């Protein structure tokens, strides 16, 4: 997949960094390069109709000023948590999903930021291991960006895999909606790298996931990295409660289990569509013709719009039953729901973040 870039900005401080040089060389003079004092300014919104989309076409290589490693947002929000840790190596994504939370989250700095000082991230990870001598951790780079979208030009996956294969208690999760796996196929991750794909039924893909790889292409890519020694996982997130959802998500799961035996899948996460009122307004303004954004969502007690409780529970239970029937033993969990909802939906209280985190890191 080739994502087009209109301009490359490089912060003066990282001008001689390996990442900046790599990008200049690989973009091959097709993209104008500017050097700026402060990359944060280059990432600010442009005064155009859709500053978010314009930001997706401006690549900014810069230093990250804050920590790279942080707990998943679910951890502090009273939600059931899987112990996932987020490694922020980039911000924003070249794809354009109508439901994406980045529309609101990076509205003030939509430029595609990539952080050149990522060696500091590795130091943070080593510190984590030193202060937690027995635990395994699952570390993901796909929270504020797609982990692989620009891998062809950044080559970041090469450095990441190289680092993680040396650390037994760390599992890297590269989360993507692309089929950009060429770099991965050239390396042996020694079982310490997991590649995960967000999957949606074709109807959702066509309606809402602009610029992404088709669901079947994602599954095909998963099969290939699996053969190359990577672990694979899948996120059915967001699940959208549209009228045909129950049938079509089940069909999607069947398509997945036809391609990969359940034993070849490390885990499956499931999470319902949730949107803050602000995100909902932005998404509907940007995608006025997307029927997926006009479902039967209501304002929930946590301040987010979610499918009304009966619809949501019914869908969760139906999918859980289908997974249990088709893939008994496959670890699956609910994401971004309260422990009470998880217990009602799956019939059992969620494990603690540490327990589930350990299980997913080693699955």
């Amino acid at each position, binding site marked *: 997949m080739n994502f087009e870039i209109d301009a490359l900005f490089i912060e003066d401080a990282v001008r001689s960094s390996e990442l900046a040089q790599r990008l200049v060389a690989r973009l091959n003079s097709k993209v104008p390069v500017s050097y700026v004092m402060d990359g944060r300014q280059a990432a600010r919104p442009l005064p155009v109709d859709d500053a978010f989309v314009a930001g997706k076409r401006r690549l900014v290589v810069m230093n990250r000023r804050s920590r790279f490693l942080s707990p998943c947002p679910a951890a502090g929000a009273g939600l059931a948590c899987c112990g996932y840790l987020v490694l922020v190596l980039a911000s924003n994504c070249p794809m354009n999903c109508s439901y994406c939370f980045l529309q609101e989250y990076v509205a003030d700095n939509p430029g595609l930021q990539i952080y050149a000082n990522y060696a500091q991230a590795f130091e943070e990870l080593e510190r984590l291991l030193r202060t937690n001598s027995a635990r395994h951790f699952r570390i993901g780079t796909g929270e504020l960006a797609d982990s692989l979208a620009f891998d062809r030009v950044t080559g970041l996956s090469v450095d990441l895999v190289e680092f993680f294969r040396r650390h037994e208690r760390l599992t890297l999760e590269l989360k993507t909606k692309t089929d950009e796996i060429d770099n991965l196929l050239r390396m042996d991750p020694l079982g310490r790298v997991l590649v995960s794909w967000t999957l949606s039924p074709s109807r959702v893909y066509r309606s809402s996931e602009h610029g992404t790889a088709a669901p079947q292409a994602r599954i095909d890519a998963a099969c290939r990295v699996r053969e190359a020694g990577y672990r694979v996982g899948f996120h059915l997130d967001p699940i959208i409660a549209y009228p045909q959802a129950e049938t079509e998500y089940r069909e999607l799961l069947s398509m997945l289990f036809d391609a990969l035996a359940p034993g070849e899948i490390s885990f499956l996460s499931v999470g319902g569509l949730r949107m803050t009122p602000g995100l909902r307004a932005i998404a509907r303004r940007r995608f006025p013709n997307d029927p997926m954004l*006009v479902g*039967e969502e*209501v304002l929930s007690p946590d301040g987010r719009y979610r499918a*009304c*409780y*009966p*619809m949501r*529970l*019914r869908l969760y239970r139906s999918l859980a039953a289908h997974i249990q029937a088709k893939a008994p033993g496959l670890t699956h969990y609910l994401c971004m729901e309260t422990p009470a*909802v998880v217990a009602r939906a799956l019939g059992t209280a969620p494990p603690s973040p540490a327990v589930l985190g350990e299980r997913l890191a080693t699955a």
Partner: protein
Amino acid sequence: MPKQVADSTHEMAGPVPATFQQGDCGRAALAPVADGCENGADHEAAIRRYAVQRRLPERSVEAWLKLGAEGARMLLELSVALKLRTGQLAAVIELVAEIALREGTTAVSVLKRGEITSIAKGVGSAPERASKLLNVLRILRYPELNRALAKLQSAVEALRLPRSVTVGLPKDLSSGQLSIEIRAGSLAELDEAVRALREASARFSEIFDSLEGADEL
């Protein structure tokens, strides 16, 4: 008026409908249509004039115009006939657009639905019919939610609890928690309310199951 609303999917070149001649504030807005010289620009001008009169926010006006010439005109007729207040009109525009998008259809086919034309043709005061219109549109916009809500409301009524006990469903069925309020002025009244609740406990289980979508909604 009712007939004109029902038939208004066709270009309306005839005289001003009776309802519009009764001095309501939409009459002036409809002048170009009444003169038989309607075209897209005239409709838009008519809608914009009416919107100014009603102080309708620009965002709603834009959404209204996106309903398509025919749908926008039908909605103007409906608004004039039912004397929709500004807030009601904004809500109707949003609901019609969302229903059309959800169902992959047009505003015209939404507005031609029997449930809606019967309100337009129906008897009763304009405010009553306006309120009915909004209810019908909300049911069309949130069909499963409303089916579940109606079912749960009947199940709560069927509990036949004393008047001192009120069972509240979660707002918009946004959670799985019922609220139960007991009003008691004495220990005896409290005991009676608690006893009634205990006796109804098995039927509460069915309500919780429905709330969790356990049965077909």
